């Protein structure tokens, strides 16, 4: 077992990182060889494992395996360094992810401060910024100097869906590691090996999720997620009827709201209670003075998290829908690519026969426009309704 094991179908990337980790070791030993740099930008579509790659690289940088002395490559996966880095408890590895919509200037300043510290373990101070795509413009600017000229042993690992999601000024300061969409077979293998999912289900989930490992895993394990997906994929067949289409849009948005409520029910109450206790509230009585601001801050955070959950859920549905029309387009153009929704072959054929490739492209464009609209704060129901109605004519 090595730290690279969970990197599915990314052989080239693993090779590049392995070389860099080797070079990093040489730097530690005082030999100035190339191959290592202080800022990396991992890019790849959602769920293909940008964060996994970044963590694996972080682990390899912290690897302290005794075998290294015998000429083994760093990244053994079971030494102290690798293990704690992978599980997120290593003292010199900071993993920053957000449950909210964006990462602001305030959090980022703190990150810059941490980046200036000398690594406690004497190796590398690694900062993994999993949601670099969610940095606000201001926050990105705060990072510029720290990324350009970090302290000697500091390494920045940023993850974003694509190069365009990072500010140009950040992009130009990083070495890009582009992950590709892993083949469905590789994803299915991982699901079987890591999660013990049976082959048929693994194959279905892998092809249905189009290379997104996280969502493939959820599809394979979660009955409700499969139900939701099936529901979403019925939309193309009902868009001809305005009433049904509007009802489907309503259901989609309701399901997303339901998800957000679920997350809130799981976390909000407990968080609030914990904070109240930490601030010294007794029972249900009045809060000590001067604590209202902190409570309000938590409330805001919870609200933002609810919005994020709702958007993520809608986004998944829209991605599934895009995949459906992508299959339609593949059929219309007789492209020899595997279909993501082979189980719905009858529906795909019907729509492919009764519409033109141009219409299909316009439909895909409508779905993408809906994602942009939701991102721009348009009321979700309105955006989704406008989309399903546009799908009607194409």
């Amino acid at each position, binding site marked *: 077992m090595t730290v690279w094991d969970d990197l599915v179908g990314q052989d080239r990337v693993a090779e590049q990182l392995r070389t860099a980790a080797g070079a990093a070791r040489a730097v530690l030993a005082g030999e100035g060889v190339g191959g290592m740099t202080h800022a990396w930008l991992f890019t790849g579509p959602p769920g293909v494992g940008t964060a996994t790659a970044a963590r694996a690289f972080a682990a390899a940088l912290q690897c302290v395996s005794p075998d290294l002395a015998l000429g083994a490559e760093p990244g053994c996966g079971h030494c102290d360094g690798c293990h704690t880095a992978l599980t997120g408890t290593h003292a010199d590895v900071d993993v920053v992810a957000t449950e909210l919509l964006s990462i602001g200037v305030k959090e980022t300043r703190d990150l810059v401060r941490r980046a200036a510290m000398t690594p406690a373990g004497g190796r590398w101070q690694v900062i993994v910024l999993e949601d670099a795509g969610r940095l606000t413009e201001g926050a990105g600017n705060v990072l510029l100097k720290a990324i350009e000229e970090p302290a000697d042993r500091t390494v920045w690992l940023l993850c974003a869906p694509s190069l365009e999601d990072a500010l140009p000024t950040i992009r130009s300061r990083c070495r890009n590691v582009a992950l590709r969409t892993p083949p469905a077979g590789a994803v299915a293998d991982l699901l079987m090996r890591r999660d013990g999912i049976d082959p048929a289900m693994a194959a279905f989930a892998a092809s249905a999720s189009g290379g997104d490992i996280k969502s493939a895993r959820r599809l394979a394990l979660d009955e409700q997620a499969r139900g939701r997906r099936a529901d979403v994929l019925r939309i193309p067949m009902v868009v001809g009827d305005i009433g049904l289409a509007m009802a489907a849009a309503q259901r989609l948005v309701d399901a997303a709201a339901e998800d957000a409520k679920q997350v809130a029910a799981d976390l909000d109450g407990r968080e609030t209670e914990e904070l109240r206790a930490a601030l010294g509230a007794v029972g249900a009585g009045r809060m000590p003075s001067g604590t209202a601001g902190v409570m309000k801050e938590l409330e805001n955070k919870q609200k933002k998290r609810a919005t994020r959950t709702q958007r993520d859920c809608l986004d998944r549905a829209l991605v599934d829908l895009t995949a459906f029309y992508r299959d339609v387009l593949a059929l219309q153009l007789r492209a020899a690519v595997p279909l993501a929704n082979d189980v719905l072959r009858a529906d795909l054929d019907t729509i492919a026969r009764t519409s033109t490739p141009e219409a299909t492209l316009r439909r895909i464009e409508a779905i993408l426009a809906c994602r942009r609209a939701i991102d721009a704060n348009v*009321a979700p129901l309105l955006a989704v309704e406008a989309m399903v109605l546009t799908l009607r004519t194409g």
Partner: protein
Amino acid sequence: MLARVARRTQDDPLAPVTLVVGPEELLVDRAIGEVVRAVRAQDPDADVRDLAPGALQAGMLSELASPSLFGERKVIVIRSAQDLGADLAGEVKKLIADPADEIVLVLAHLGGPKGKNLLDAVRKVGVREVTCPKVTKVGDRVAFARSEFRVAGRSLTEDACRALVEAIGNDLRELASACSQLMADTDGVVDEEVVARYYSGVAEASSFTVADKTVEGRTAEALEQLRWALSVGVAPVMVTSALAQSVRQIARVGAASRNARPNDLARDLGMPPWKVDRVRQQLRGWTPDGIVRALCAVADADAAVKGGGTDPAYALEKAVVTVSTVRNI
């Protein structure tokens, strides 16, 4: 018509205790003023103590209620009686149970559940009560304006009355002062033209009026309402959400069977039955393609007012024009 908004149980303003119950401030003030005037008419030297909320301190009431040296009459007005603490409420109850001769007590109470204990206790004694319920309906406000004129011995036409209420809006106090201003400025019967000379425009244009006019295809009226709504401070996002709601209802009611009973449809679509009827009237002229384009236009406007565009007013106007003209496509 004033009787509808201020019902009197026992009509003697000189009763030792008057209980004024209700949230409508103007009517409360008038009820209090009526008592004060009645007392002053009898005794011009009467001492009037109008206690603002919170001005009453413990023990003060018995001091105020004690007989004065020259035996002049005294009016004690206690406002916001619902906010009195238990001690003060006790003092008030004692005073009411054993009224002094020359004291006229006016107790103003909001009438809600707060301080209900005091309210019940005072009612039990059997005092003169004036109720001042909130005037919420447009019809009631029209009736109020008409009665204002009648009490002053003037008259105004039905249309004038409506125009005035529309121009002034919800605040009864403003309506009353507008009425007295009109009476002072004009002679004879006040008609719509006279009202229009002094008051024009609409005080409360809501996003829903804009949306209704828009989906009914009345472009000019919708635009006018939109301008009014924006100028009285309706947030642009409220307009887009009202527009979205209207178009959505058109789409959903329009897609449902024409033979479905309003009640069934209302349950299925989650809106009140009268709304279903209303939407069915608005449906005329709408086609599926029109609905699609209308909804997309509203979605674009929503993005524009939420920071996607530079001028929310323009985005809204564009949406209103598009939605109201895509019918019949």
